[in-house]
């Protein structure tokens, strides 16, 4: 197979990788914030549940979690799911996993805001929700850009784990092509594409970070 054909096949697969990436990033950023609220709840039982959830999600392999999400419904509840559930399972598994990481990032960002910011807002008459929305969250957003950048870069590479459920993303295709072609060309090209994609993402985050640097 010539390089052009391989590249084209891989790029087709990269669309699925991108889908996994985008769904996970958006889903986990939202779910992570909710999880962070539970983690910081004033009810101890909720805090403990969130803590255990985060601990398990961060402490076991993502690949294993994908298996659980994909095979769990059948083995636990005997629910037959169509093969198209594969991609959905990947989305669910990735979002559940990354939300745990993002929740901790949000938490460290929120806890880093000085108490005086809350006090000043309270004295000025801001409600709790207003304080969080207008005073705290904008500052948290700036603080978490670097750790979120890290996670996002890891996520791009992690999308290749979807091959374990035989979802036709870029790495899965690279494996197929390499096996058929009996060369590692496909892997090399896939590596280059992952790298370029990461460069773009890192560049976008760097730009965002710069945009937010109007204050310290």
């Amino acid at each position, binding site marked *: 197979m010539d390089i052009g054909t391989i590249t084209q096949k891989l790029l087709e697969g990269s669309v699925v990788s991108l889908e996994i990436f985008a769904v996970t990033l958006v889903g986990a950023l939202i779910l992570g914030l909710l999880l962070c609220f539970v983690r910081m709840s004033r009810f101890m039982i909720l805090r403990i549940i969130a803590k255990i959830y985060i601990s398990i999600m961060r402490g076991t392999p993502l690949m294993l979690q994908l298996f659980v999400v994909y095979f769990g419904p059948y083995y636990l509840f005997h629910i037959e799911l169509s093969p198209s559930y594969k991609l959905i399972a990947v989305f669910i598994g990735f979002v559940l996993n990354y939300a745990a990481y993002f929740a901790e990032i949000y938490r460290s960002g929120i806890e880093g805001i000085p108490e*005086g910011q809350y006090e000043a807002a309270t*004295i*000025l008459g801001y409600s709790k929700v207003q304080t969080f929305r207008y005073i705290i969250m904008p500052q948290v957003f700036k603080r978490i850009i670097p750790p979120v950048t890290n996670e996002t870069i890891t996520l791009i590479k992690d999308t290749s784990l979807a091959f374990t459920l035989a979802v036709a993303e870029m790495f899965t295709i690279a494996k197929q092509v390499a096996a058929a072609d009996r060369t590692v060309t496909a892997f090399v090209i896939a590596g280059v594409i992952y790298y370029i994609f990461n460069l773009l993402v890192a560049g976008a985050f760097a730009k965002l970070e710069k945009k937010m640097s109007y204050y310290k």
Partner: protein
Amino acid sequence: MSLLEIKHIKKSFGDLEVLKDISLKVDEGEVLAIIGPSGSGKSTLLRLATMLETADSGSIVYAGLPDAVTATKAQKQQIRKYFGLVFQNFNLFPHRSVIQNIMDAPVRIQKKDPEQARSEAMALLKKMGLEGKANEYPQQLSGGQQQRVSIARALALNPKILFFDEPTSALDPELTGEILKVIKNLAAEHMTMVIVTHEMNFARNVADHIIFMDKGVIAIEGTPEHVFNSDNARMKEFLGKLGD
């Protein structure tokens, strides 16, 4: 007329009794200075009066309003409109410009017309000698300038009483003067103020009434002459230490 009446408040943190039965009154147009050694409870007193902490017992009543000690959440929101507080560390919002720091609460909380809020904020900045700094961000300013912005931010909500919690403690001696001047000007306009301070000369010159606190009680209070010339042993010791 009294704008604020505090009666018999007590506050403990764990086993530590920080305030033991404090009562005081703040009259309209009065400047009250609260002085005393570290750990005497003066900042706690201010935090109770501004509802950042809740007293264990006693009452804190702003004229015509429900008791702040037992107030519901909604009542507290109502009481907060009555006063402003200037913090030791300014606590400006770093992500908003100077003008936004001042006009955000009037617009967002008081629902004031943004244009009107802006022109009022500009007038306050001018009064603070900072009209050129409207679009800068807090960390671009000196400590003294930041503190003046925070005073403007408090004034923008038209409080009836303005509290200051050691407003110059975080500043170089050089910058302290500019803040004291601002407070002096406000006193000349008959702004009712309660100032926790370590600046003895300032307290003596600006305050109408001085409270000297020691170990959670009011050790002595009265006019500056009365307090500074008193024979109270703790007061003498305190002033002596400052003189060293």
